[in-house]
């Protein structure tokens, strides 16, 4: 008798395990370790094996036979995956030593191996194969999460763009109408006042009787010199085309094409006027392409056209998320389009302001300077100009300020709110010559009080958006040289950056604010941005974007590549969550406030968010190390 009973049974377990990945590739010793410790249990159909309420998972499970359902419940939505023989759970929760966010329930009578949590961690330690398996599993959650995000938006985008949208949903404003005895003049005045393309005429029960559109005016009113004092019913088109609110956009398009009209009246169940749908409303349903938006920006000749383009940019951002574009590309697209928009606004303003021969540049600060604009970014801009000898500075500056005020107002009209802190080019304090800028920056560096540090965190992320690029480059070169030479300043910046810690809890996953939410900007993105700025100033990296700064300075500082990649991923994930929150918010017409409630996130997002914050912590400990804080 050479083989003992335990050997035989352990052998049976390892033979079983070897039929499945990753155990088939596992090192012999590690597999033996696992098989030695795997005890077999039974879970009757319907019984809960592991739930979030059970607290820290004490066992790692491998299904031997049967079926186990992993149920995920987040924000009222639930999803489930069925696990079969050879599959294991929970990987993330037990690795992170926190309660599972899934509930695992036996879907059939199931035999399930289990090992203790300590043995699981030991197995991770002794088996590179198993470690890789678990790590990849957790990493795969990231792409799953992105996938999920895309699905959500694809659905939303599809809903928005579909021609099956009911007309009732397309009506943008309450109908404007007049009674049949209204004078034509009064009706036209009302039309102009409401900036609408047609006027509907209704009887006293709101039933539409007729319509008068802009294109009717020339042949029926202007050319025949129609007496505007006469009632509108004499010129209107009688029995206008109507469709019920439940009809689709497709029906409307068909009707317009068939009858050659540009406006349709939408009526409710009782035949009362509910609104007007125009041909343009239907066109806007169709997918907006990047090229179209770009072209419409560049072809815009007035602010109204640019306002429409600004709306399209938001719409486009939604589409891009649906198409699966990551946060990095997405923010760059938004940034590029916003740049184009700003360019156009400046170009239009230059038609009214003669700056010929003036050497200047329009600067973008803050997130715009970093190419990291999200959808609810207010303006942060300034001007740098050269005052030639023999030219009086004040009159030149006044001209620039007038021009800047126009641009600031136009930007505000296009959805970039005026900066509450007045960080705008029209502020005389921010319309400066290179010497003045250097003086200001130099003062912050030599006297880094809290306000100076705050200023540095906004203004040092400048870039040239319009005008002479060299003015920006020279200022950047000077700034890097000065900051590099002043380690006390960088140290103060590091102290400042370390004031906010990643919201990771000791007991709970996240430390939340009073409202139960995490501010993704203040305690998320900012941690990355601040650290990257200090690294960039230290290593003399010229880029203003956080990711570029991290990548370029990491190379100089000898950071391992994969560590940097993980940090960048973490930053992108937080940015993606911010964009998503803003999207969801803008759709509800509330301002994006960067807040996310971790309880409302799904399992995957929460797990990845936690990992992202860990990356921020890593960055901070690097700062601590560098500046001995």
């Amino acid at each position, binding site marked *: 008798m050479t083989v003992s*009973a335990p050997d*035989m049974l352990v052998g049976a377990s390892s033979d*079983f395990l070897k039929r499945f990945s990753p155990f088939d590739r596992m090192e012999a010793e590690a597999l033996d370790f696992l098989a*030695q410790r795997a005890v*077999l249990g*039974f879970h009757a159909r319907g019984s809960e094996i592991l739930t979030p309420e059970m607290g820290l998972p004490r066992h790692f499970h491998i299904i031997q036979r049967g079926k186990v359902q992993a149920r995920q419940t987040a924000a009222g939505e639930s999803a489930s995956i069925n696990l079969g023989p050879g599959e294991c759970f929970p990987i993330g929760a037990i690795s992170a030593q926190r309660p599972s966010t899934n509930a695992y329930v036996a879907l059939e009578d199931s035999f399930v191996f289990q090992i203790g949590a300590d043995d699981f961690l030991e197995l991770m330690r002794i088996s590179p194969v198993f470690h890789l398996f678990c790590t990849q599993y957790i990493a795969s959650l990231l792409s799953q999460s992105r996938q999920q995000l895309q699905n959500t938006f694809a659905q939303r985008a599809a809903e928005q763009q579909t021609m099956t949208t009911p007309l009732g949903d397309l009506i943008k404003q309450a109908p404007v109408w007049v009674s049949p005895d209204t004078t034509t003049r009064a009706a036209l005045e009302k039309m102009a006042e409401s900036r609408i393309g047609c006027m509907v005429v209704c009887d006293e029960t709101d039933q539409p009787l007729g319509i008068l559109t802009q294109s009717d005016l020339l042949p029926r009113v202007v050319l025949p010199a129609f007496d505007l004092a006469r009632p509108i019913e004499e010129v209107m088109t009688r029995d206008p085309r109507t469709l019920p609110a439940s009809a689709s956009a497709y029906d409307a398009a068909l009707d317009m094409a068939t009858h050659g009209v540009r406006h349709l009246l939408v009526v409710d169940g009782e035949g009362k006027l509910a609104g007007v749908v125009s041909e343009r409303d239907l066109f806007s349903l169709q997918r907006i392409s990047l090229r179209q938006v770009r072209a419409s920006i560049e072809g815009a000749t007035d602010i109204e056209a640019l306002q429409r383009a600004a709306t399209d940019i938001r719409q486009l951002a939604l589409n891009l998320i649906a198409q699966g574009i990551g946060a990095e590309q997405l923010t760059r697209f938004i940034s590029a389009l916003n740049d184009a928009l700003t360019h156009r606004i400046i170009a239009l303003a230059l038609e009214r302001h003669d700056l010929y021969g003036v050497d200047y540049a329009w600067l973008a600060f803050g997130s715009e300077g970093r190419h990291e604009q999200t959808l609810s970014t207010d303006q942060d801009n300034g001007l740098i100009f050269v005052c030639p000898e023999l030219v009086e500075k004040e009159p030149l500056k006044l001209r620039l300020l007038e021009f800047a005020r126009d641009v600031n107002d136009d930007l505000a009209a296009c959805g970039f709110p005026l900066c509450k802190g007045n960080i705008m080019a029209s502020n005389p304090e921010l319309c400066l010559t290179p010497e003045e800028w250097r003086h200001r920056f130099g003062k912050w560096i030599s006297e880094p009080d809290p306000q100076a540090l705050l200023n540095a965190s906004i203004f040092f992320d400048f870039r040239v958006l319009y005008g002479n690029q060299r003015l920006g480059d020279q200022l950047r070169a000077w700034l890097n040289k000065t900051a590099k030479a002043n380690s006390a300043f960088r140290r103060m910046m590091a102290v400042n950056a370390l004031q906010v810690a990643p919201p990771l809890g000791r007991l709970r996953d996240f430390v939340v604010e009073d409202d139960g939410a995490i501010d993704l900007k203040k305690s998320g993105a900012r941690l990355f941005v601040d650290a990257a700025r200090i690294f960039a100033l230290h290593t003399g990296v010229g880029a203003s974007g956080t990711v570029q700064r991290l990548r370029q300075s990491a190379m100089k500082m000898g950071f391992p590549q994969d560590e940097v990649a993980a940090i960048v991923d973490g930053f992108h994930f937080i940015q993606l969550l911010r964009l998503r929150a803003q999207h969801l918010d803008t759709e509800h017409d509330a301002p994006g406030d960067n807040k996310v409630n971790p309880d409302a996130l799904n399992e995957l997002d929460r797990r990845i968010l936690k990992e992202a914050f860990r990356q921020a912590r890593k960055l901070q400990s690097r700062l601590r190390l560098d500046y001995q804080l």
Partner: protein
Amino acid sequence: MNWLNRFRAPRQDAAPAPAIGELLRRWDALPAPDLGRPHFDTRYVVINTEASGLDLEHDRLLAVAAIAVDGGLINPRESYYARLEPDPAAALAGLLEFAGKAPLVVFGAGFNRSILQRAWQQWLGVEPELSWLDLFWLMPAVFRPGLDGPTRLAQWMKIFDIETFQRHHALGDAWSIAQLFIALQGRATAQGAGSPRALAELERARRQFTTPA
């Protein structure tokens, strides 16, 4: 187990009768198990035998195997297997040592229990008093498969899709029986039979119900 290995290693030389006597005394001194405790708090021992045939009169016991089911879990390291040759006393004493006074679980007590008790009597001179549970009766009592439902071990294994590394091997079949037993525990608990005593009562009722008086 460790103790047993030490005990079995030197046995080539002479029969360690004193050691077996000591082992039996210790076994005797063990407290009787509390049969009213819930399954998760009870250590059961699944026992299986391998014989030269199924005829109690003529066939010999060849090997014994046991697997503990403690708290509803099967731990492969908590198992025992021994062939009777060359030292039947050591093999049988080792089984007793492994089982302690835990309630025993077998499939087909009629044969297993009889052949084991005869062997204990023959080689050790003892008739240990133990509580026995028979899955032959308990499986249908708990899973209620209907009149022409499964009766044989192979049939139950098929229903539960249970595999083993070696059929008709004492330990190989014990491994299957142990798996049947943990499934049974799960279901029986849901039906209110949550302790060894409750299982024993269920078995008795089943025997009375199906065996003609």
